[in-house]
């Protein structure tokens, strides 16, 4: 397997340098850039598999860099780092489909987990027996650059998970045959790296939600699901887990 190339963009030299050194220990090839414009320069000549950028930098911010990269190399996952805990620009990046936002300071182990996940170019699986709902949800995700697939029942969902690189599964809870709760249970035991987000619009949704949480769902949403809430939930699931 060829080594993956990672571009780290941060104006703080010590942070950038030490992070790069740690990633190289893990077998990655790391290129450093000290600003957004420097990064763009580099990317004209080199290709990378992932971009890890600080948000707050003089000149072009990390978010602006990400939006720029979406235009030129949209398939390359971008991770943003920040020391802020609350910022409108972070929200903007999330809603524009950044892979995840990680908060400094972070453990190297944790950032490695996120990096490896991102490098697989994972896909979100939307499962709902109501085909229109599933399709429109997937469309909404693709519109912001999040790769998504659909399944219309639990069983074909399990097939998908076996075949494709799925890291997040968004499932309706009330489905015939294999229910959402059963699917969650299956995923928790057979594919534990998949993060399950359960949603339900049924009238007895509370009981189903409790069962889903007990079965291993990391988050519940009520239908109708706001696409931006969903995108944020996906980014959060893909980020560093506390």
């Amino acid at each position, binding site marked *: 397997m060829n080594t993956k190339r990672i571009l780290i963009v941060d104006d*703080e030299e*010590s*942070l950038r*340098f*030490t*992070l790069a*050194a*740690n990633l190289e*220990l893990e077998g990655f090839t790391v290129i450093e850039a000290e600003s957004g414009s420097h990064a763009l320069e580099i990317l004209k000549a080199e290709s990378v598999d992932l971009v890890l950028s600080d948000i707050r930098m003089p000149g072009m911010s990390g978010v602006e860099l990400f939006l720029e990269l979406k235009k030129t190399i949209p398939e390359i996952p971008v991770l943003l780092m920040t*020391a*802020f*805990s*609350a910022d409108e620009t972070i929200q903007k990046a999330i809603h524009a489909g950044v892979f995840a936002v990680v908060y*400094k*300071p*972070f*453990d*190297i182990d944790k950032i490695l987990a996120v990096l490896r996940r991102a490098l697989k170019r994972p896909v979100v699986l939307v499962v709902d027996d109501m085909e229109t709902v599933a399709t429109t949800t997937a469309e909404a995700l693709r519109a912001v650059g999040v790769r998504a697939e659909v399944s219309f029942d639990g069983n074909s969902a399990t097939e998908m998970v076996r075949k494709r690189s799925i890291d997040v599964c968004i499932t309706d809870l009330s489905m015939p045959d294999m229910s959402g709760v059963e699917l969650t249970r299956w995923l928790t035991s057979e594919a534990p790296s998949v993060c399950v987000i359960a949603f339900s619009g049924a009238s007895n949704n*509370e*009981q189903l*939600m*409790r069962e889903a*949480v*007990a079965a291993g769902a990391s*988050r*519940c*949403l*009520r239908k109708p699901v706001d696409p931006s809430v969903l995108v*944020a*939930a996906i980014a*959060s699931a893909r980020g560093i887990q*506390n």
Partner: protein
Amino acid sequence: MRQRQIITKAPIELPSRSSALRITKLFDERYLGMVVKVDNLLARLMIAQWIAGIAIAFLISPLAWAGKEAVLHSHVFAAIFVGGAITSLPVFLVYRAPGSQLTRYVLAIAQVLWSALLIHLSGGRIETHFHVFVSLSLLAFYRDIKILIPATLVVALDHFARGLYWPESVYGVLNPEWWRFLEHAGWVMFLDGFLLYQCVYSYRELHSHCEQQVALEDAIDSAGKMEKLAAIGTLAASVGHELRNPLGAIRNAHTYIERKLNGEELAPLDPKLVQFFAIITRELDVSSKIINDLLEFSRPREPDLAPCPLKPLVEESMSLVPPRDGVTLVNDVPESLPIPDVDRDQFRQVLINIIQNASEAYKPESTGEVRVAAKTTERQGWQIIISDNGGGIAPDIIDKIFEPLFSTKVKGTGLGLALTSSMIERHEGSIDVDSTEGQGCMFTIQLPPRSTGGAS
């Protein structure tokens, strides 16, 4: 589970319990100050009246006939001795016990007795009767209607009794009309009416001044606190941000070094090397936590609300609280409790903070439990109750526990409960605490019912 109904409001609003105490204290001080001034005034007046009384006696009726000889009129003796008797006790009391209730009642009665004596000494002269009005008006300076009552009664009794048995002394004539005393009483009542009103009014006015004073002090205090908070917030934010990058670099460097130099190589050089690497990791974590608390406090995150069943969340929180010997954590949240919408990370932090505080309320070597229960009502939404039977919270600090930078612990930022209450507020909820020192503590978190549909 305890079912206490009386709950103290978390003092993010004005603490009215301690305000009432301060108002009372301020009022008592001011009232006493005023009373002492009036006591002194009346005491001096009393002495002046004595001198005036003797002068009047000498001027008007210095001599009388005793048979064929001229002797000093009895009025002179009355002025000196009766006057002296009336004056001495009150003046003594003002000297020894100014401001006491006894002093002012004695002064009141003595004052009207002086009116009576002066009337007598002037031979029932009409104009001297005006002194009664002067006396009663002076007594109104006490702003206390209870003082006027015995004074008025003494005036009435005196006029009635002397009117019957010694009319020249009070009216100056031998045979006044039988209802004459009523005419005098009528005028006194008339004056009393206004004086009573004035007493009540000025008493209340003094009280309301004190209330305003305390409110003003509270407002200044609270403005000062807000300024302090704003300053802390700004400082915390900038310090926190600035520290995160250096911390990140240190951590990364440390991780790299740890990886390159494994324990087997290091230990023979110096066993402390391995230990110190662990220390660096641990203290970096502590630093991160402090910075996170500071930043969370100064730049709070909007909660990311999602349906989150409470029982598993409480379970998770309990598992993250450092265990203490002898303290059992009990999760009494019903399985079927309706699911609230909360920010899972923030609410978990809230629960951890409160449960940990409750667990630490037990002195080492004692046993007890921390119990978390919850219920919902349609109108009020969710109520989550965390109770313990530990040391409780002293009444003089219970109003302050949610204030930032307030802590009874030696270590720590003092932000834990302040953060907790601000996180709850951002969920549009509230938190109250109820505690008796020595008997434990009960925190109640209230979350509003969901806007679409009810909680039940």
